[in-house]
């Protein structure tokens, strides 16, 4: 048996076919009239309808959420979501900052592969907009290192400001080049009815938006959003869409503990192992949804997944020559980033993209914090069911 470098044996990692049988979501945005439970209920019923099953077919629920406890005063999201269904299936909540959604999917895979469940409902949900900015900022800083990062007065945009400053210094990336990233993601979001922002944003307006954490500006940052997404995974109900890989990797929480801050080891590990698990070459991926919480992260991610050489990620936005689509949904910047929901929503978007393009493979890359947790899923579409 071949051992992967860390963690699971690769041969055992996906030892059952896990099919994606349905999905649903709320539009991401500012939902002042919807509470966290209301958002969850909307996404769950949309997913059940889409899957063409009844609620009673669901054996277990995994929900990803980061700050429900601090912002909505609501813990126990597993039990709360389970109570939405008539038969109250077993349910649990997982947390991995912005990667909570994809880690929920990863957990659901484990339940299916171990034959604990046949059909699992995976939900990602976050309610962020009706709290004060300082409360949100401090809750999000929970993704950093409370002893090494926070005491100096650092915020999450500040962490990525540090990363961007180093990246620009090392590779000579200019402010004008970086602005292409958000502008492109907004352009893609125009076609997505579930996106928070569906208007064009020029690179010039990104460059001239208010500074947040130099060199990053307001329009480099993904927004504060409300939203929920749900998918239904099953090993007994067949579908043309199958999860070919689910890989989870971690790294030191604090930037001060890393050998470099312009590349994320967790992305490199998770993506590389996911390709091995799915037995594909990265070139076979037709659609990629990557974690662009800040514009600079999109470039680093492309480099860490080896779609570009170090320092050359911007080439993909400047030249737009690649065959693979990147964040066709609009990404975190265009769609909005209700943190726990993003990782689930990415898989739903890939499913839509693969069906529309009749391509075979799509990859979802979702990380938490500054890449301290990274989860990568590869979705395979059997074009001829």
């Amino acid at each position, binding site marked *: 048996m071949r051992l992967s470098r860390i963690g699971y044996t690769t041969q055992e990692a996906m030892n059952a076919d896990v099919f994606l049988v349905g999905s649903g979501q709320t539009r991401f945005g500012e939902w002042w009239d919807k509470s966290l439970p209301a958002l969850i209920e909307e996404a769950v019923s949309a997913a059940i309808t889409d899957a063409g099953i009844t609620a009673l077919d669901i054996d277990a629920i995994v929900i990803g959420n980061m700050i429900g406890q601090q912002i909505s005063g609501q813990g126990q999201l597993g039990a709360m979501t389970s109570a939405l269904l008539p038969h109250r299936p077993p349910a649990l909540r997982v947390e991995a900052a912005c990667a909570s959604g994809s880690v929920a999917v990863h957990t659901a895979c484990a339940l299916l592969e171990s034959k604990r469940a046949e059909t699992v409902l995976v939900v990602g949900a976050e309610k962020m907009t009706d709290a004060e*900015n*300082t*409360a949100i*900022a*401090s809750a999000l*800083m929970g993704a950093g290192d409370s002893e*090494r*990062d*926070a*005491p*100096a*007065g*650092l*915020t999450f*945009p*500040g962490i990525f*400001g*540090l*990363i*961007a*400053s*180093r990246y620009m*210094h*090392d*590779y*000579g990336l200019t402010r004008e080049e970086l602005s292409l990233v958000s502008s492109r993601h907004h352009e893609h979001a125009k076609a997505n009815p579930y996106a928070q922002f569906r208007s064009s944003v020029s690179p010039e307006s990104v460059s001239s938006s*208010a*500074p*947040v*954490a*130099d*060199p*990053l500006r307001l329009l480099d940052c993904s927004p504060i959003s409300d939203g929920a997404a749900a998918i239904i995974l099953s090993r007994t109900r067949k579908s043309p869409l199958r999860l070919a890989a689910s890989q989870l990797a971690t790294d030191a929480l*604090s*930037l*001060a*503990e890393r*050998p*470099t*801050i*312009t*590349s994320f080891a967790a992305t490199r590990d998770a993506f590389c192992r996911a390709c091995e698990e799915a037995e594909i070459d990265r070139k076979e991926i037709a659609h990629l949804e990557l974690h662009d919480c800040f514009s600079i992260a999109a470039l680093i991610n492309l480099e860490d997944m080896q779609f570009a050489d*170090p*320092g050359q990620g911007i080439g993909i936005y400047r030249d737009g020559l690649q065959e693979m689509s990147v964040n066709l949904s609009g990404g975190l910047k265009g769609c909005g980033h209700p943190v726990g929901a993003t990782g689930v929503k990415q898989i739903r978007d890939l499913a839509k993209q693969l069906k529309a393009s009749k391509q075979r493979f799509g990859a979802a890359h979702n990380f938490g914090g500054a890449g301290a947790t990274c989860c990568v899923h590869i979705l395979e579409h059997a074009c001829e069911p």
Partner: protein
Amino acid sequence: MERGTISAVTTVRHPPAGFPDEPRIIGLITLDGGSSVIGRIAGISPRIGDRVVPRMSMERVNEQKLRAYDVVYEVAAPAALQEDPFVFEGYILALTGPSGVGKSTVSKVLSSALSGIVTRVPILTTREPKDGDDGEYLYVTREEFIRLEDAGALAASTRIPSVSEDRRYGYRTEDICKIWNEGRVPLVVTEMHLLQGLARSFGRRSILSCGLLPPGTSRRAMLSQLLHRLRTRGRDSEQSIADRVRNASSDLDFFSHRKELFDHLLVNDDIDAVIATLKGHVLRTQEDTR
């Protein structure tokens, strides 16, 4: 409290609750001992590469009027470089590798093979002169070294971890600039801290960075090869060899962790082949930059 060098810096425009409501400059600082820390930087528009000195500062007063003190870093000397770090003054040829891989030999042979192009940059060191040294070192006292470092006169410096002594090495900015002014290419031998220091001071793109690896297909084989070379060259005591092999292990990790810091990786199994390859890289770069 250790001094250090800024390796990344940002201005947080909206600091978290409890901190003064004004832009807050925060840096990732590489301390001289090699570890990193995140702290507030006191100074006007600090830049990557600036030297910083720690001091205590009252950072905030909470609602109960308790005063919270923290370490802040004050800019001691701005990075010694031109206004725009991306103006290309020239480039530096850097040879990086673990102790015993043959950096000095390669550097010596290469500088005579390319005598019309490259000049070796003298290495500032606090260690005692030894028999095997051949004019590549400038010997200074520890006090003088620290004075130069704090005055911002060093483009890069490092302290080699050792149980027996406190050895420091560095390169002076003026030595490198002088070689550029003569229209020649400065040649430096470095390890991980010196290479990162040079990349901080002059920008990564100003360095033609070549890594030298010992022969061997496994990590263990590489380390035993280094041990063999260190013993046969007879320059070091057993104690110093033990230190060097310990450091070599982290130097080998550096090649894989910081791939982006290297343009070329070469295995030093045949000196003539290595010299020929390096010569090719330099001549090609000479043509590209002309």
